[in-house]
């Protein structure tokens, strides 16, 4: 049919972008901290910081997702592990199970370290609760590597699912392509390593971690470099591809928040700072690397924020439901919706009723 209309959506907005960001960051933090502890350098403090932080991030993210639901009681249907047998094609079902089991296994993996730390055992309430699980801590130590791998596998699934979820929406060219899961995967690990660098520099502050910090910095430089290449591929894809992708390109590449906020300060600047750090060093100063890590974290959120807002639907008629839900939420109009709002009045629902 002739005459297509293009619109963004306002159903999943910054609220979901925060969830996707925390899900990717938390999941990747568990993967990196557990694998570091198992195969690179035994590091109890890093595991505690990484896994407890991930627990908080995923708890907050999941709570945000829960609040967003229309029927909170019905969430029980997706918490049941049998859902993977009845709905194996739904990535939210997989994601829910990955998150739940990641939280369970990562806490059990961390439990022995918590039980031998006075800070935790003497903490009111938490210390009492930890005391109930002494037996589990001993059991965890006996099967520590197995439990670590169970945490890693589920955490990796959590990271991967955030991208696969967006990819499963076929109507939007920006989302429905194999680049999205890869981009979100690389971004998640980049932000997680940035977060763990902040932990190592600002919280743990041990001189003997120098080798580990250098390893993380080198890894982050490579990941940011790969992310920059993927963004360039997306630039090519959106500017010369399907019409809805070209509308996405118009939104993204005319927005200073995307260009300056994400591409420049979220990727290029931290890449240059960390590249200098791993090649020539910063003379022992931790400030540049801390700054780069903060920028990477900010960029990680902005990537997901703009991906949610810049997904463009192509339809043979103007959007009705999505525009309506947008007005209900009273959020800022996304750029393409602003254009739609300027269309002649006979396209609007108001004229339909009036």
């Amino acid at each position, binding site marked *: 049919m002739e005459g297509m209309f293009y619109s963004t959506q306002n159903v999943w907005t910054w609220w979901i972008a925060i969830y996707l960001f925390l899900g990717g960051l938390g999941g990747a933090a568990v993967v990196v901290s557990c694998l570091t502890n198992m195969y690179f350098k035994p590091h109890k403090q890093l595991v505690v910081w990484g896994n407890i932080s991930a627990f908080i991030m995923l708890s907050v993210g999941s709570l945000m997702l829960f609040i967003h639901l229309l029927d909170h009681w019905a969430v029980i249907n997706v918490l049941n592990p049998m859902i993977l047998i009845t709905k194996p094609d739904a990535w939210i079902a997989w994601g829910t199970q990955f998150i739940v089991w990641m939280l369970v296994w990562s806490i059990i993996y961390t439990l022995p370290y918590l039980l031998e730390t006075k800070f935790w055992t003497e903490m009111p309430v938490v210390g009492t609760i930890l005391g109930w699980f002494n037996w589990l801590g001993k059991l965890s130590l006996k099967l520590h590597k197995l439990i670590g791998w169970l945490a890693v596998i589920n955490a990796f699934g959590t990271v991967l699912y955030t991208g696969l979820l967006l990819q499963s929406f076929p*109507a939007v060219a920006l989302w429905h392509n194999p680049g999205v899961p890869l981009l979100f995967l690389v971004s998640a690990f980049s932000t997680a390593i940035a977060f763990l660098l902040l932990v190592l520099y600002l919280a743990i502050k041990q001189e003997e971690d120098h080798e580990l910090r250098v390893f993380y910095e080198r890894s982050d430089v490579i990941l940011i470099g790969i992310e920059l290449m993927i963004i360039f591929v997306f630039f090519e894809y959106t500017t010369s591809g399907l019409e809805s992708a070209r509308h996405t390109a118009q939104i993204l590449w005319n927005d200073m928040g995307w260009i300056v906020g994400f591409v420049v300060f979220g990727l290029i600047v931290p890449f240059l700072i960390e590249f200098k750090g791993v090649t020539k060093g910063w003379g022992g100063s931790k400030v540049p690397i801390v700054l780069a890590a903060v920028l990477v974290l900010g960029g990680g959120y902005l990537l997901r924020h703009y991906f949610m807002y810049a997904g463009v639907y192509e339809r043979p008629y103007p959007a009705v*439901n999505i525009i309506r839900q947008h007005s209900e939420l009273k959020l800022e109009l996304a750029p393409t919706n602003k254009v739609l709002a300027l269309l002649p009045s006979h396209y609007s629902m108001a004229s339909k009723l009036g």
Partner: protein
Amino acid sequence: MANTPHYAMVIDLNTCVGCNACMAACALENQTPVWDNKWRTYVHDMEIGTSTDDDVRRRFFPRLCNHCDNPPCMSVCPTGATHKLDNGIVLVDDELCMGCRACVMACPYDARYDVTSDDLEQGDKFFGELHYRTRPSVDKCSFCAHRVMRGLKPACVETCVGSARMFGDLNDPNDEVAKLVKTGVAKPLMAHLGTGPNVFYISDIERTT
């Protein structure tokens, strides 16, 4: 399976007069939250043509859930609330729906909308004791499955004064809808997405020059 019907709808854009009776009939039949501009079917009122007055014409474009053979709203649904019957009708079980709105994001046809707790309260006032909705969910057209199972046509088809909406069985070679689809006169929307839509349109645009 040969005897199982495969329901589909053909919409003739040449005969839709834009009376919106289909919207009204659907809203009453299915108790949609019209106070919040939420419809299972909607008739777009559009102008098409070039900028010169002679070329511009008015087009009414009814739209609804396309009851896809490969519905993306169903595959993304994490609870199984959105499901497909053997006869091709895609339904929503509001007992299972948790309202994550992934289906809204996945639907290429803008066919899904929220029924919120506020809508349920308003529905009690609007529809009175006949109001049947009890749970929030993400609703959509059901091809009036409750009517079709009793041998009736969907409410929007029944009420259409211009016979613009036709409902039939694609598995019945003698069915008018099946013939219109098979001859290629009626075409689906955005079939390239792989959704296998079962609502087909007869275009009102003809080459005149």
